[in-house]
């Protein structure tokens, strides 16, 4: 009886050992394959990092943004990187800490009503400007900042000024 039991235990352990060894070998091979593929990928990334920079530059743009709070506080935010197709609205939205706006939809678009706690009121409000490098002057577009699609090297400004003086004074 003991001999019989010993025989079956031995056979079971032998089967287990063979299957376990094969499974371990399989996972070892899989580990090496994936490790090798990972190393290849890292090497490719390291050698092509220049190309990746070029690709990233190809799908983004840089703009300079001027912010004037109307109380003498004036701040330049230069070389802001934005995705292609960004607008003056997304540009200001990306640099300020908090901002309120009203979306009128359709042709009217978005109106900025508050930047960093400075709100529009009955006498003052936020204006956005675009620097025209051709004529070297600030232009006050007659449409929403969300309609103004930016180009590489554009310069825009948001100023807080009185409605009483029209047109409002240029940013600088």
């Amino acid at each position: 009886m003991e001999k019989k039991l010993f025989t079956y235990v031995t056979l079971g352990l032998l089967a287990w050992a063979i299957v376990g060894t094969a499974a371990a070998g399989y996972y070892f091979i899989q580990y090496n394959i994936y490790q090798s593929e990972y190393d290849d990928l890292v090497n490719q990334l390291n050698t092509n990092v220049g190309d990746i920079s070029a690709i990233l530059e190809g799908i983004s743009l840089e703009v300079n943004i001027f912010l004037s709070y109307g109380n003498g506080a004036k701040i330049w935010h230069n070389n802001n990187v934005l995705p292609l197709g960004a607008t003056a609205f997304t540009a200001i939205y990306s640099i300020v800490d908090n901002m309120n706006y009203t979306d009128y939809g359709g042709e009217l678009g978005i109106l900025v009503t508050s930047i960093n706690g400075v709100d529009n009121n009955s006498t003052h409000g936020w204006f956005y400007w675009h620097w025209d490098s051709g004529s070297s002057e600030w232009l006050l577009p007659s449409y929403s900042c969300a309609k103004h699609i930016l180009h590489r090297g554009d310069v825009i400004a948001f100023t807080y000024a009185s409605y009483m003086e029209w047109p409002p004074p240029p940013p600088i």
Partner: protein
Amino acid sequence: MESSTTRRVAVFTLLTALCISTQLTPRPPNVEFTSLLVFFAGAFFGALLGSTLGATVMFINGFLSPWGFAGLMLPFQMAGMIIVGIVGGLYGRTKKGIHTPSSCGEAAILGAFLTVIYDLITNFGVAVSFMLLGIPVLPAFIGAIVSGAPFLLIHVVSNFFVFSVAFFPLARALQEFFGGEKVWRKNSLPM
């Protein structure tokens, strides 16, 4: 005795038909009942009939399998199943036609072990095809076993459960149907 022989022929014929039909039925890879039935045939009809059944089923399977023509694998599959039949015959001889609940564990371990042997043999068949491409014997054999390890695992585990669950009830039923030595003395079958 004539009645017993008739019953044995009838059962063996049924086993053969069942074995071939289940082997040719589409199923998950490496989940099969042929090993059980061949082992069972060996245990009840002797090593010669069991191994003949195994070889025949694998020969037919080699041409009509839903996985396609076995090709170079065919002789190795037949050899593997012949061994299952022979071991079934030896097991039947040790049990002397009397199967008890302990047969569940014995059959499960034997099923798992025979599956490993069968897979080693058929993997050697795969290795032969590698060898024909110029790969040395040992790397070809180890490569075949390692690359087929998930299938080996499925095969062994599924056969362990199939043997442990199905062998004893089948053996018990057939033991009574044939009127095994003890059963024959207790209750003679109505003829």
